[in-house]
C-alpha cells in the first residue's frame, strides 16, 4: 500500500440474503483526488459508501481509510471521514447553526475550537445568512450545503458525498460543484452520481459500477479515448457535385462515408467520414477537397461523449450478464443446497 493511498478498498463484497449488492469491488484513492462513482440506480454505489463510512461492514473484503481498517478501527475511520448521505437527512427542528454545532460536538471537536470550526464551516458552505433559520424552512440548495457543512466541520481528510446534486436546480448544481471542487483541493473526495457531466466536471478519476461490479476505472479523458472505436469526421461542403461522396470514399484509410440528408443551410451538405482509430485522415480529406476545388465549409472530429461511453459500457456489461446468467443460476442452486445441508447439521 502506497503512503499516499487514502482509501484502499480490496475485493469489497456485500450480500443481503441471496442478493449480492456489491461484488468484489476494488479501488484506490490517492490523497487529494476527487473520485466519482458512476453507475445507474441500484449499481451498488450507496452500499459501497455505507461500507466505507462504517455503517455496516462488508460481507467480505477489506477497506482502509487514512491508514485505519474499517473493521478494526471503526471509530478512527469515522473520525477521518465526513459523510453526506443521499437525500440529506437533517434535524428539521434545529437551526442551521445549532445543527452544525451538534455535528461538531458529536464528532469530538474540542469546545475551545467549536466556535471557530463552526464559523469556518458556515463560511465555506456560504451559510452565514441562513445560520439562524430552522432547517425545516430553508431551500433544497441550502439543505445540501448544510449537509456538506456537517461533513466538513471537523475538517476530516476524506469526504464522501452520496448523490450531492440530486434534486437541485441548474444554478444550485453549479454552486455545489464549485464547492466540491474547492473542497477537493484540501481533502480526498468520493462522490457518487448517475449524472455524467458531473463526473467529467468535478472528478479526476471515475469508477463505473454496474450490478455491484467495477466495469471501468480511469480518468474521464482516458475513458473517452479508450472507448473511441474509430475516428469520425464531419465534412461540410458547399454545393458539392454528385461525385463528392465517391471521392471521399476513395481517400486511403476511409472505411465508410455517409451523406446526411438534412441541410442546415442552403447548399450545405454534411458527410460523416469514418476511419480506424489509428488513422487520422483529416489532412488527406482536406487536401482532396481542395484539389477538387470544392468549397470546404467545415471539417471537424466528432467525439464520443462520456454519455455514449457510459451507455456503451453498461449495455455491454448487461449483455455479458445475460450470457453468464444461466451458469450463475446453476451455481446459486448448488450453493443453496449446500446451505440447506449445513442448516440440518
Amino acid at each position, binding site marked *: 500500500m502506497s503512503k499516499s493511498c487514502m482509501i484502499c478498498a480490496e475485493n469489497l463484497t456485500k*450480500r*443481503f*440474503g441471496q442478493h449480492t449488492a456489491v461484488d468484489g469491488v476494488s479501488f484506490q484513492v490517492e490523497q487529494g483526488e476527487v473520485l466519482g462513482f458512476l453507475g445507474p440506480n441500484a449499481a451498488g454505489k450507496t452500499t459501497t459508501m*455505507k461500507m466505507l*463510512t*462504517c*455503517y*455496516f*461492514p462488508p*460481507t467480505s473484503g477489506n477497506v482502509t481509510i487514512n491508514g485505519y481498517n474499517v473493521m478494526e478501527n471503526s*471509530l*478512527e475511520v*469515522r*473520525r477521518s*471521514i465526513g*459523510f453526506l*448521505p443521499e*437525500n440529506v*437527512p*437533517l*434535524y*428539521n*427542528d*434545529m437551526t442551521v447553526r*445549532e445543527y452544525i454545532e*451538534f*455535528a461538531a*460536538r*458529536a*464528532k*469530538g471537536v474540542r469546545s475551545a475550537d467549536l466556535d471557530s470550526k463552526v464559523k469556518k464551516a458556515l463560511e465555506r458552505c456560504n451559510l452565514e445568512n441562513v445560520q439562524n433559520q430552522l432547517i425545516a424552512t430553508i431551500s433544497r440548495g441550502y439543505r445540501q450545503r448544510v449537509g456538506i457543512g*456537517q461533513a466538513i466541520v471537523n475538517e476530516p481528510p476524506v469526504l464522501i458525498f452520496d448523490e450531492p446534486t440530486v434534486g437541485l436546480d441548474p444554478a444550485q448544481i453549479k454552486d455545489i460543484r464549485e464547492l466540491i471542487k474547492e473542497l477537493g483541493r484540501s481533502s480526498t473526495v468520493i462522490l457518487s452520481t448517475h449524472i455524467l457531466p458531473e463526473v467529467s466536471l468535478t472528478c479526476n478519476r471515475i469508477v463505473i459500477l454496474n450490478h455491484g461490479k467495477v466495469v471501468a476505472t480511469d480518468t474521464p479523458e482516458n475513458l473517452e479515448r479508450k472507448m473511441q472505436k474509430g475516428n469520425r469526421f464531419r465534412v461540410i461542403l458547399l454545393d458539392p457535385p454528385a461525385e463528392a461522396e465517391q471521392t471521399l470514399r476513395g481517400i486511403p484509410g476511409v472505411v465508410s462515408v455517409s451523406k446526411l440528408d438534412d441541410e442546415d443551410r442552403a447548399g450545405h451538405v454534411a458527410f460523416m467520414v469514418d476511419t480506424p482509430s489509428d488513422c487520422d485522415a483529416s489532412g488527406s480529406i482536406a487536401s482532396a477537397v481542395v484539389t477538387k476545388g470544392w468549397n470546404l465549409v467545415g471539417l471537424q472530429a466528432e467525439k464520443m461523449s462520456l454519455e455514449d461511453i457510459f451507455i456503451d459500457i453498461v449495455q455491454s456489461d448487461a449483455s455479458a450478464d445475460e450470457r453468464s446468467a444461466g451458469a450463475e443460476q446453476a451455481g446459486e442452486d448448488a450453493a443453496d443446497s449446500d446451505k440447506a445441508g449445513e442448516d440440518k447439521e
Partner: protein
Amino acid sequence: MYAVFLREVKSYFGSIMAWALIAVYLLISGYLVAFSLEDYSQFSMSAMQGMQMPNINELLVQPLLSTYGFLLLFFLPLLTMRLFAEERRSGTLDLLLTYPITEAQIIFGKLLAAMTVVLLMLVLTLSGFIIMGRLTPIDWAAITSGYVGLLFMAVCFISMGMWASSLSGSQLVAASITYGGLLMLWIFSAVDKLGFLKEKFGDLSALNHLNNMTRGVVDTQDVVYFVALSALFLFLTARVLESRKWRG
C-alpha cells in the same frame, strides 16, 4: 454523548412536547394532591371520635407516590416514542451512526435527555408535599425513598420505550408496544391478588417494587429489579441498532 444529550433536550424543550407533558402531568398530580388532602381531612375528622390518629404517611403520602408512578406509565411512552423512530424515519439515524460515537453513547445521551424531562416533572410535583409538610409533619425519609423509586422506575420505563422506538420508523408502533409492555408490568400486580400465582408474577410488577420504596424501604431486590430491567432494554436497544451490521 453530551452532543446527543444536548440535541435531545433542545428538541424536547424547543417543541411543545415536553411542556405539554409536564403541564398535564402537573395538572393531574395537583388535582390528586388537593383531592386526597380533602379526603384525608374528612377522614381524620371522623377518626377523631375514635382512639387512633390516622397515619398521614400511610393514608396520603404513600398512595400519592404510587399514583405518580402509575401516571408515569401513561406519560412516558409519549415521551420516548420519538427517540429513535423519528430519526429512523427521517434517515438522520443513518448519518448519526457514521459519526465517531458509539451506540452506547447515543443511547445514554437519549436516556439522559428523557430523564431530564422526567426529573423536571417529578421535582415540580414535590410542591404538593412541601405544602403538606407545612400543615402537618410528614415522613420526608419515606418521600425521598419514594422519589428515588420513581426515578428508578422512570429509567426502566424509558429504556423499554426507547427499545420499542428503535424497532421501526413509526412512533405509533413504538408507543403501542411501550403501552403494551408497561400495562403488562402493571397487570402483574393485579394477578398478584389472585393468590395462587403470587410468588411468580407479583415480583414482576413494577408497581409492587415501587410500593416497597414509597413505604420507605429501599430493598436490594427492588433496586436490582429496576436496574436489571433497564439494563435488559438498553442492551436490546443497542442490539437493534447494531443489527444493521449483521442483518443481510
